[in-house]
């Protein structure tokens, strides 16, 4: 079964972390990725740039309108995700709990099953 584990970050919370804490998160993700590769459960992972770099695109009257900044008026934003293939939802939750973000107040980790896939992995 495929799951997306999405990482919801609060840029203010990330900024408030010490350099050591930031390094620990980075190292934690590195170890997590290696572990997932070894178990054959990693499909891919992607990290997104800071939400301040986002652009919102709408089409009004047939004309595209582009505005700077994220779409949501929120504190937490999608920071990246893991796409994994594992046995069941319990295993996906177990893996998600090992992500360093899960232990930090203000950073969120969410697990949802994939319902439809297309692209290279469907080839």
């Amino acid at each position, binding site marked *: 079964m*495929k799951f997306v584990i999405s990482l919801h970050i609060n840029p203010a919370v990330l900024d408030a972390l010490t350099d050591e804490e930031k390094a620990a998160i980075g190292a934690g993700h590195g170890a997590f990725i290696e572990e997932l590769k070894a178990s*054959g459960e990693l499909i*891919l992972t992607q990290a997104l740039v800071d939400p301040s770099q986002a652009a919102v695109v709408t089409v009004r009257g047939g004309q595209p309108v582009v505005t700077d900044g994220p779409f949501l008026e929120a504190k937490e934003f999608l920071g990246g995700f893991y796409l994994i293939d594992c046995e069941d939802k319990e295993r996906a939750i177990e893996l998600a709990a090992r992500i360093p973000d899960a232990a930090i107040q203000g950073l969120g980790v969410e697990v949802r099953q994939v*319902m439809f896939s297309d692209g290279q992995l469907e080839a």
Partner: protein
Amino acid sequence: MTGPLIEDLLRELAPQVLGVLVRRHGQFDDCEDAVQEAVLAAAVQWPAEGVPRNPRGWLLTVATRRLIDQLRSDRARREREEATAHEVVPEEVPDTDDTLLLLFLCCHPTLTAASQTALTLRAVGGLTTAEIARAFLVPEATMAARISRAKQRIRAAGSSFAPPAGAERAERLRVVLQVLYLIFNEGYTASSGSRLHRPDLAREAIRLTRAVHAQLPADGEVTGLLALMLLTHARRAARTTPQGDLVPLAEQDRGRWDREMLDEGTGLAKASLGAPELGPYQVQAAIAATHADAPTAAQTDWRQVQALYLILERIAPNPMVTLNRAVALAETAGPRAGLDLLAGLAADPRLAGHHRLLSVRAHLLERAGEPAAAYEDYRRAARATASLAEQRYLERRAGRVRPAG
């Protein structure tokens, strides 16, 4: 011989050669690598240079050489392996029950079901890592990592090639059948994704189950599982519309069912009931055979289906079985009786919020003349499923009973 024929031949021969190698040298992981390399070499050479006179002997010779090359790097073993390298390879691979032994090894209890499945498809099914990765929609590297981990774990568990005996054998056979059924189900109804069928996987599961059945023809559960797969697979063409939408059993065009496959499945299902012990696959096959016997959905012998589900509930209790019995009960005693049976299931944590429970309840509510409640359950079921085809079907049903306004 053309490419596809050579592929079929290799798929058939690879497990046989692997069986001989493992029997002779042990070390499943090294042997498996060597056979994969020999198969690869054959896939390149045979189409260009022609299939050798004795393809099995050819594969065994090449695989043995590869294995010896690998083992040679281990200095301590050098002498013994030199001797083996000079051994004359027999013309014919002995005809033994290696398929079953390989299956027992691949369905090793220390592996997860996902790894058992992948390893079975590669070592016994002869599928390449790329093919298995495609079937499960994961990158090849991911599947390669999983297979190599599985092989390491078998090695760490100190597995020998000795067939399990006594109670352990029966238990391992149960796992083997479960893995084959898992492969079949993944092919029959993909657990998620846009396509409902992956017929290659279902066909592969049937082929492997046939191989087990050829070796254990008297085992009721093996016969029952093969019958169940054939009876289910025979309905494949009628299960979806050309657009890929799900067609429920009651609405399927039975003229599109594969009669020949149904007849074979029905024959096996009947034969399996003669076995001394009755297991869940046999009963499920008998249920599928009852459906196959009915010329139209309305003529289904629901009393027999209901009775068979009662037996299944007794020998393999499971809320999903009770759920299915509620469907049969509703056909003989009316939708209210079915709903009453479901009411007792709703509290079971294994089923709470499960889309199957919600969709069955929605069907029965619709038939009981409660469209508003049916609509709510259809919508909730549609949200709970991970299959797009099923979601479309449930949304369509919801649309039919949507309350006005």
